[in-house]
C-alpha cells in the first residue's frame, strides 16, 4: 500500500524549483522523451507522484536516472511545468535517499552546512601541511597516498552501501524476481553505459553535449589513473607527463565550457543550476586546472617556492574526494549506470509476466 505524504512538494523544494503543480497531465513530455518505453513512463508519472506525495513510488522507480536532460519535454510543455527539471530534482533527492549516512541530505539542503564542510576539509589539509612542516616532498608524498586511501575508503564505506540501498529500494523491496543469469549478464551493459553514456545519443539535442561529456569522463578517469597509479607528479616518464598534461587540459577546458553555458542559461539543460551543480562543475574545473599548473611548476622546478599551489590543489582534491564524490553529483556516474542495469532486469521480468498473462499490457 502506498502512503501519501502531503508535504512532499515542500520537502522537495530544496532540491530544485519548478512549476510542477501546473501540470495538467497531457502526457506530452512522456511521449516526447526518446527514453520512455513500456514500464518506464516518465516524466509525467513522476510529476503525478510528486503532486500526490507518493514517496514510495518515487523511491522504487529508477526513472529519473534514465533521463539525460535534453530539455525537449520542458521546451514543448504546454503548461511550462518544467518536467525535465523535475527529473533532475528527483535525481538530487534520490541521491540523498540512497545515502545511508544522511550526510548528503545535509549538504544538499543547507548551503551553510556545505560551506562549513568545505572549510573544515581545507583546514584539515592545511593542518596536515603544518604537521609536515610544509615540506614539499613529504606533503606531496602524503597527497599521493591520500588519494589512494580516500578513493578506496569512500568506495567501500559510502558508495558500495549506497548502491546496495538503491538495489534494495528498487529491486529487493519491490520483490522483482529475475533469474540469476540476467543479473550477471546485465553487468556488461552497466559497465558499457557507465563509461560511454551512449544512451544520451538518443536525445537529438544532446549529440554534441554527449561527445563533450564523453571526452570529459574519459579525461577525468585518465587523470585519476595518471595521478593515482602512474604518480604523475612524481614520475620521470615523459609519456606519463605528457598524457597527464593532455587530460588535465581536457578536463579544465571542457568544464570551463560547461560553466560558461550554465552562466548563459541558453539551453534547457543549463537553465536551472542547483548549488550542487555549481560545486560539481567548478570543482572539476579547479581540479583539472590546479593539477595542470602543479605539473607545470614541477617541470619549471619552482614548486618548492610555490608550495601554496600544491596545497591548493590538495585542498580541492580532498574536498572533491571526501565531499563531492561520495555525497554530491559525482554519484550520477554510478546511479545512472545501475539504473540502466535495474531497468533492464525490471523490463525482463515485466515481459515475462506479460507472456505468462500476469500483467496485461496492450500495445
Amino acid at each position, binding site marked *: 500500500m502506498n502512503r501519501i505524504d502531503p508535504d512532499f512538494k515542500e520537502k522537495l523544494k530544496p532540491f530544485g524549483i519548478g512549476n510542477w503543480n501546473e501540470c*495538467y497531465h497531457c502526457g506530452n513530455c*512522456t*511521449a*516526447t522523451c526518446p527514453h520512455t518505453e513500456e514500464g518506464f513512463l516518465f516524466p509525467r508519472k513522476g510529476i503525478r507522484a510528486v503532486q500526490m506525495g507518493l514517496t514510495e513510488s518515487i523511491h522504487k522507480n529508477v526513472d529519473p536516472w534514465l533521463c539525460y536532460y535534453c530539455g525537449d519535454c520542458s521546451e514543448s510543455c504546454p503548461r511550462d511545468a518544467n518536467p525535465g527539471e523535475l527529473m533532475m530534482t528527483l535525481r538530487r533527492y534520490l541521491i540523498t535517499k540512497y545515502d545511508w549516512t544522511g550526510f548528503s541530505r545535509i549538504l544538499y539542503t543547507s548551503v551553510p552546512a556545505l560551506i562549513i564542510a568545505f572549510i573544515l576539509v581545507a583546514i584539515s589539509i592545511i593542518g596536515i601541511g603544518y604537521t609536515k612542516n610544509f615540506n614539499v616532498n613529504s606533503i606531496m608524498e602524503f597527497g599521493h597516498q591520500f588519494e589512494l586511501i580516500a578513493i578506496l575508503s569512500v568506495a567501500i564505506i559510502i558508495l558500495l552501501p549506497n548502491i546496495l540501498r538503491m538495489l534494495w529500494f528498487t529491486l529487493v523491496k519491490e520483490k522483482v524476481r529475475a533469474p540469476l543469469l540476467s543479473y550477471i549478464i546485465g553487468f556488461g551493459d552497466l559497465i558499457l553505459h557507465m563509461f560511454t553514456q551512449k544512451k544520451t545519443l538518443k536525445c537529438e539535442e544532446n549529440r554534441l553535449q554527449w561527445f563533450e561529456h564523453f571526452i570529459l569522463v574519459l579525461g577525468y578517469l585518465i587523470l585519476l589513473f595518471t595521478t593515482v597509479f602512474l604518480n604523475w607528479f612524481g614520475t620521470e616518464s615523459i609519456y606519463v607527463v605528457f598524457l597527464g598534461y593532455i587530460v588535465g587540459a581536457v578536463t579544465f577546458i571542457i568544464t570551463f565550457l560547461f560553466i560558461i553555458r550554465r552562466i548563459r542559461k541558453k539551453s534547457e539543460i543549463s537553465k536551472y543550476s542547483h548549488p550542487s551543480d555549481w560545486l560539481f562543475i567548478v570543482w572539476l574545473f579547479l581540479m583539472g586546472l590546479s593539477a595542470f599548473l602543479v605539473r607545470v611548476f614541477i617541470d619549471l622546478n619552482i614548486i618548492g617556492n610555490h608550495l601554496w599551489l600544491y596545497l591548493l590543489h590538495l585542498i580541492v582534491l580532498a574536498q572533491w574526494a571526501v565531499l563531492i564524490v561520495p555525497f554530491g553529483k559525482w554519484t550520477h556516474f554510478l546511479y545512472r549506470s545501475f539504473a540502466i542495469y535495474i531497468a533492464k532486469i525490471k523490463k525482463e521480468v515485466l515481459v515475462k509476466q506479460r507472456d505468462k498473462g500476469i500483467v496485461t499490457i496492450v500495445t
Partner: protein
Amino acid sequence: MSRTLVTGVYLSHSANNHSHSIDYKDIYCFIQNVPEITKIWNSSENPLTDPEHFAKEIRKNNIERILIAAYRPGFIKPFFAKALQKAGKAAENIILADIFSGIPDGMPLNEWAKAKLICALSGIPFDISLLSEHNPAQSETLIIGGGIAGIQAALEIANSHNKVYLVEKTGTIGGHMAMFDKTFPTLDCAACILTPKMVDISQHSYIELMSYSEIKSVLGIPGNYRVEILKKARRVNVKTCTGCGTCAEKCPTSVKSEFDQGTSLRKAIYMPFPQAVPNKYLIDADSCRYVQTGKCGVCVKVCPVENCIDLDEKDQIVEVTVGNIIVATGFKPFDASRMEQYGYGKYPNVITSLELERLVNAAGPTGGNIVLRSQDKKGNWIFDTDSPQPKSLALIHCIGSRDENYNRYCSRVCCMYSLKLAHLIGDKIPEAEVFEYYIDMRAYGKGYEEFYKRIEEEGVHIIRGKTAKIDEKNNRLLLRTEDIENDRILEQSVDMIVLAVGLEPGSDTDKLSSMLGISRSDDGWLEESDALSNTNQTFSGGILLAGTCQGPKDIPDSVVQASAAASSVIQSIMQKGVPKSLASIPLEDIKQKAMELSALNKD
C-alpha cells in the same frame, strides 16, 4: 445614517498590461486622503504569504473592512477573508475594486482607477454611476463581418424595420460556418441552416450588403458615427452578372481557393462557392493576369453580358452615418505550421480540421470523398477524387490551444468538432479506424456530453494523451503518445492526421480595435465591458460585439450573442439614445455621481 466602517486598503501593484504606466504613488496619496481609511498595504511591501501578519495589523488598527484594489481582486479575496477571520472580524466585510481592468484606450489610467475606487468605497457599482446621459442616436446600424453572427444580428435588426449596412471583407457572406459540413451536436447540415439566412440578407429591403468591402475609418460620436467604407473593385458588375461561369472556365490563372482552405484551385475570376451571396463573380486583383501585367482580358471577351466585366474598375470609398456598430469579425484558425513537431506543411497527409471539413463536404473539392493527398503530374500535392481513401485517421486535439507556448485559452469548439468529424469519417469510410487524442474532453453544452458518449459508442478510439510528435515512416504517419488511462506509450501508424486547430483573433482585430477605440483582453480578443453582465457591449458607446471576435465560441453561442447585440441596438433605437463612450465621460462626473448616490443611500 449608517456609520462608515474603518477601512484598510490593499493596493496591488500588478495591473495586467498597464503595470508600467500607472503611478501607484499618486493612487496611494489619493487613498490616504479618504477619511475612513486608516491603513494601506502596498502589494510590493506586503506579499500575500501569511494571513496572520495581516490579521495582526487589522487588530492593531481596528480595521473593520478591507478594500482590495487590484486587477481581478476576486482572486485574493479568500486570503483577506482568512485574515479578517483570524483577527476576529466579520469576514464578509470585503469590497473588491477591479481598478485596473477594462481601461478604454486613451483613458488616463490613474483617474480611471480613482473613479473606480470611489465607486467601490461608496458601495455604488461602477456601471450605475455611468448610467447618465445618452447621445441621440441614428437608427441605421453598421455590422462588420458577414459570418453567422453578423447575419443573425443583421436580420434581427432589419426585421424591426431599421436600416442595416452589412460590410463583409470577402466576396461572399457566410463566414466559417459556410465551410462546415455538419454542425454538432445535432449533425444538422450547416448549409441548410445558413444559406436561407444568407439569401434573406441579399433580399431584405432593410439590409444593404457591401461584400468585398472593408472599414476604412470611423469618426464621430456614439449615436452618430461617420464610417468610411472601402468598396474594393470587384471588376464584375453585381447587377448584371448572371453567374453563368463562362469567364471562370476560360480564365487562364489558377490559385488556391481560400474558401476550400487551399484544398482546391479557383480561377482569378471566381465565385467563392456555388451558394455565395451575392451569387456573382469577382476578380482577385492579386492573381488576375490583366491587372498584374496588362495583357489578357479573356473574361471580357467570353462574357455573354455586355459591359459586365470592367477590368479597370477602381476601388471606391462610400460614407455612411450610423448610430450603432456591431463588430462580428470572427476568428482565424491557428496556423498549425507553427508547431513544428506535427509536421504540418511538411507531411502531405497532416491536415487541419478545417481542411477535413471541406473534404467531408459534399460540395467540397472531392465531392465529399475523404481521400489521401496525391501528387499530380507536375508534382503538386492535391486532393484527387480518385485517390485512395485513408484506412486509419488520427485527430489530435488542442493544437495551439491550452498551451503556454501558443495560446493559453481553450478554444472551446475543437473537442466537439473533432468528435463530429470522427463521426463524419465513419459515415464516409465505415471501415476506417479513427483515433482521437485529447487532453481533457470538454463537452460542456446542451446535448454535448451525450454526443461524446454516442461517438464513443460508435467505435471511435478516444485516447487520453497529447501526441508529442509526428514522423513519416514507410509512407505512413507515425505518432507517439502516452496513453494515460492504459499506462503505456502508443506508437501508432495512421494514413492521415487531422490537427484540431484552435481559434485566434482575426488578423484585422488590431486595426479595428484602434479604429473603434475598443480594448482587447490580454489574450487578444476584443474586450467586453463586463465579463459577466455586459458581454456584448464595449466601453465605446454604441459599439457592440457579437460572435467569436469577443472570444472563442460555437455557433449556438455566437447566434445568442448576435441576438443580444441586436436587441441592444433595437433598444437604443427605441430609446432614441446611445450610451456615451466611457472615455468621453469626465471621471470627475462619475465620482460625483457615485458620491451623490451613496449619500442618497445613507439618508
